[in-house]
């Protein structure tokens, strides 16, 4: 599903956020990425999500070599194959939960009625079927993150990338969100989660540890899965 080969990323000013990272994640995996602040976790996830292009190396997502795709094709790849979950939700204010989720399908070419139908189904899936008319400010933090997850999965993407999805939540809401992601994994979605929470990281089947832009440990390598 994801294949990074010697991927590096440096920013102007001499910051090397990624230094020759190679990583293989297969379809259906649930992976935690851990590491100290500034170690390059977000940079790697954005590179996987094709939001950022690497300075060097090869990134293959679902079989596509990202460096060979145009902006239009990359956008289509993101729209159809990848769902994003952010630490700060990124929900539109003054817009109902239903339409926030339906907006996740805005660029799919589906008509509005179909987008809303799928949005309703996605909200049911995250247990917010009774909150579809609520606007973000009328929802708790945990509920907001569940709306954001519903938006990420409304189009049934095979890959979900989550950058600290529980970072802004208390432990109870965080546990609810993790349960959702586990369910999603159970239904076959490949999931990559950045987390600072040792407990959460420990509960996931595979952990990748980063430091100074390199992968310093990978639990899959120890058990010989990859």
């Amino acid at each position, binding site marked *: 599903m994801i294949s990074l080969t010697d991927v590096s990323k440096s920013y102007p000013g001499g910051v090397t956020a990624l230094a020759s990272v190679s990583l293989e994640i297969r379809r259906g995996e649930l992976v935690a990425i851990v590491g100290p602040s500034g170690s390059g976790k977000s940079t790697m996830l*954005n590179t996987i*999500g094709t*939001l*950022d292009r690497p300075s060097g190396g090869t990134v293959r997502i*679902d*079989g*596509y070599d990202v460096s060979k*795709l145009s*902006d*239009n*094709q990359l*956008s*289509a*790849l*993101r*729209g*159809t194959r*990848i769902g*994003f979950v*952010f630490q*700060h939700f*990124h929900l*539109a*204010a*003054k817009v109902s939960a239903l339409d926030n989720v339906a*907006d*996740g399908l*805005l*660029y*799919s*070419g589906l*008509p*509005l009625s179909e987008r809303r139908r799928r949005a309703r189904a996605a909200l049911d899936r995250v247990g917010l079927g009774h909150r579809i008319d609520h606007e973000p400010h009328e929802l708790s933090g945990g509920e907001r993150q569940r709306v954001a997850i519903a*938006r990420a999965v409304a189009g049934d993407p095979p890959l979900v990338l989550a950058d600290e999805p529980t970072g802004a939540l208390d432990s109870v809401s965080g546990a609810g969100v993790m349960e959702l992601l586990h369910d999603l994994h159970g239904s076959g979605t490949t999931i990559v989660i950045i987390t600072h929470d040792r407990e959460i990281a420990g509960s996931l089947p595979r952990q990748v540890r980063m430091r100074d832009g390199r992968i310093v440990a990978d639990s899959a390598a120890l058990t010989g899965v990859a």
Partner: protein
Amino acid sequence: MTAPLAAARMRPRDVMRVGAVGLRTRPMRAFLSALGIAIGIAAMIGVVGISSSSGAELDRQLSALGTNLLTVSSGQTILGEEAKMPVDAEAMIERIGPVQAVSAIGEIPQAKVYRSEQIAAAQTGGLTTYAVRLDLPEVLGATLRSGTWLNAATQTYPAVVLGATTAERLGVSAAGPDAQVVIGGERFTVVGILEPVALASDLDTGALVGWPIAEDVLDYDGHPTTLYTRADETRMEAVRSVLAGTANPEASNEVDISRPSDALAAKQATEQAFTGLLLGVGAVALIVGGVGVANTMVISVLERRSEIGLRRSLGATRGQIRTQFLAESLLLSAMGGAGGVCIGAVVTTGYAVYKGWPTIIPAEATAGGLAATLLIGAVAGLYPAIRASRLSPTEALATP
């Protein structure tokens, strides 16, 4: 093994919906920047509309009054004295073939007009007494506001018809046996009051008395000072060329001939030049409105960076982001344009109705205004839209 990827096209309805997001979330700001455009468009529609309506009114007036009137006035001698036309000038002009009708007035400078005997002699008030022929209203298309015109009987009595301005200055509101004024020291009864006379505005400040009574009691010498001539519309130039010689064979160079409808048309031309200037002011207002929209769009893009990043992560292409902000800018200015056309139309209608003119809101001006609006919207939105589309998704998402 991998299928080709292509982003789906957005439906026009979705483009509109997304373009309206900024307007919905910040309605006050949208309203104010649309207002800037609206004021510019309203100014332009109003200026064009009012000037067209006034033009239509003039055309209506001219076709009602006719453009075939020629005015012959006695003018001045080489020595600067008031020239005199012969007493039989009217009769001579009547003999010119294409001439249809002639009427005459004679100014009586020594006969001053007062409200009553108590008013000091120095206060003439700019009013003039004229001896008039009975057919004057027909030839000039003049109408009465109150009372009646002079007739064969009243022209021999101390009876007077007042011009519109004269009646106002003297404080005479209606004709009748009680309404009396003093002319040349004699009491005259006001039998009628004229509406303003478009083709002979001198009469508005006149007090009009019958030819016989003027000769009897006001020391009038019987020489006409102005002749009004209606002639065949197609032969105006021919009539004009012989008129001076006919009116005063001895001193044709002293005679002034004018066509009052030309003066009205010339006045309209001056007004049109002024309209051009006002239109320029309106255009400046419109451009200022456009700058307001551009400013709003730049701020909108700055504020909504994280939204842009999110949309990119949801699969929006650069082109779709560009389209979104361009659509927002076009919507903003189109709203302003539509509002401006409405305001301009209401102002024009209100002013025309107040003035009693026919209301004309030219379709070309409306269409041109709306087209200008869309052009401004496109120009104002282009730069912010391109900037929005060039944002890197990760940087956009990183902004709180």
